[in-house]
């Protein structure tokens, strides 16, 4: 009798657990579905009321409307833009942003770590860096057009400047906040100065640096577009500038949407990279709490 009951109890407990898991999973699915439905409704409501307002009350010449913007996008991708194929424009802007991003982040990381580890150098450079950071860097784009001409290099320079400072400050902070304990331990274990740098300082600063790279790529695209905007012969910035010149508000929105999509794709790629590099980190507790 007795073993029978206890066994049934155990089975019952397992059943209960399985049911609880299934229930919590279903609840989670329902919640996610609900969130997505509301999101779609929100987008439809905003776009719908805009379309309606632009058709009946406000002047679509100034404010454009979703259907016109969509038409412009389709037009660009099928027949091309006033400046030639849309893919050429995207490729040019992307190339400028990527080169500026690569140079800027390498420069920012190297200089940030060097200054972060050298008390003397950082004390010497502190006021200059503060001043350089206070310069409204967008204005440099005009200067770079004069220096480097209308070609690609002036846009790369603008993107570089924007990226460099964003990355530099994070790398600097990351290199400064390395756990003294870890450095001492490495020294006791026989590490040279260089080995302390490569095996302790750089990995410690990695999470800081990666965090800055997310916003830095956005800055790279802004740099490239603003550079094109202030003078160029190709690129998305030029396209937007041209749309402004011809009072083509749909064109400005269309350019904006393309840039947004590119930035989101880049963000997604960087997140993948971050996950790969920071595998050793404990998973965020919020993820566990949601289950």
């Amino acid at each position: 009798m007795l073993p029978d009951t206890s066994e049934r109890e155990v089975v019952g407990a397992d059943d209960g657990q399985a049911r609880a898991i299934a229930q919590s999973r279903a609840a989670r699915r329902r919640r996610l579905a609900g969130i997505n439905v509301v999101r779609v409704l929100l987008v439809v409501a905003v776009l719908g009321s805009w379309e309606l307002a632009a058709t009946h009350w406000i002047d679509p010449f100034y404010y454009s409307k979703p259907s016109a913007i969509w038409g412009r996008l389709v037009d660009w991708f099928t027949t091309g833009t006033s400046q030639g194929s849309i893919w050429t424009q995207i490729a040019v802007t992307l190339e400028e942003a990527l080169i500026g991003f690569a140079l800027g982040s390498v420069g920012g990381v190297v200089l940030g770590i060097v200054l972060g580890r050298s008390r003397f150098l950082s004390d010497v450079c502190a006021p200059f860096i503060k001043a350089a950071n206070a310069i409204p860097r967008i204005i440099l784009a005009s200067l770079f057009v004069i220096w480097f001409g209308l070609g690609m290099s002036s846009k790369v320079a603008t993107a570089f400047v924007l990226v460099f400072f964003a990355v530099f400050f994070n790398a600097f902070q990351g290199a400064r906040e390395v756990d003294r304990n870890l450095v001492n331990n490495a020294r006791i274990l026989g590490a040279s100065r260089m080995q302390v740098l490569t095996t302790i300082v750089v990995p410690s600063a990695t999470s800081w640096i990666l965090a800055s790279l997310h916003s830095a790529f956005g800055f790279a695209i802004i740099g490239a577009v603003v550079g094109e905007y202030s003078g160029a012969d190709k690129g998305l910035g030029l396209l937007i500038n041209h749309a402004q010149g011809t009072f083509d508000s749909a064109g400005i929105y269309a350019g904006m949407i393309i840039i947004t999509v590119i930035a989101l794709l880049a963000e997604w790629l960087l997140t993948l990279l971050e996950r790969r590099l920071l595998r050793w980190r404990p998973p965020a507790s919020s993820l566990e709490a949601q289950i």
Partner: protein
Amino acid sequence: MPTQATPDGPAIELRGATKRFRSSSGGVHTAIRDLDLTVKSGEFVAVVGPTGCGKSTTLSLVSGLEPASEGQALVHGRPVVGIPEGVGYMFQNDAVLPWRSVLDNVATGPRYRGLTKRAAREKARDWVERVGLGGFESYYPHQLSGGMRKRVALAQTLVGEPSILLMDEPFSALDVQTRSLMQDELLRLWSGTGTARGAAVVFVTHDLEEAVVLGDRVVVMTAGPATVKASFDVPLERPRDAEEIRLTPEFLDIYREVWESLRGEVQITRERGAGNAA
């Protein structure tokens, strides 16, 4: 294993060592003053003293992480300049690298010393087994418990086969049961067939019980600035069982004797603390 310059001489010697730090307010803080300490090779010395009295500073002078302001620190008869050969140091806080697996953490020292990755890992694998972490080689530190992380740190230190082992309250953050388990483990590795055999140990702790369980000798420090107040030989036989030995009358006798000496210093520190709080 590093050759010892004077095989019969002391492993560690501090002569009139004083260490001052500049405090943030511009004043000078003396952590230890005129401290003399000699540790024979193969001797296990436990250092007790009130909290914050400068016990850790003593270790940093021996390890070469900090130079002495006055006096001398000698390791194997040679003055300490930089980090001496054959010194292992286990810190109070975890110093394991969070971005490396257990195996690669233990292989860190050998890699620094120029071994190839394969050779370093082979050596590390052996030590991971010895500290009882076999099967956890590929885990990251955040996946381990506090006690297991201490085992990683222990293996990381012992893989270098140190002839001098400095330990700064390594087990103070552990719960009571894990702590005595780790004490047993340390004694086993120190006195057992391992290569750590014969290492001179300086084990800093504020826990008198731990000091008596582990040490051949217990050194009592004064309230800061620290200097040696008294030294007691612990007449307990080895091998010792960390859990059982606490219950023997011999243990209680020596414990009481050392406590008589330590009590005054703890009292002074407490009164100072109360003064600061007021």
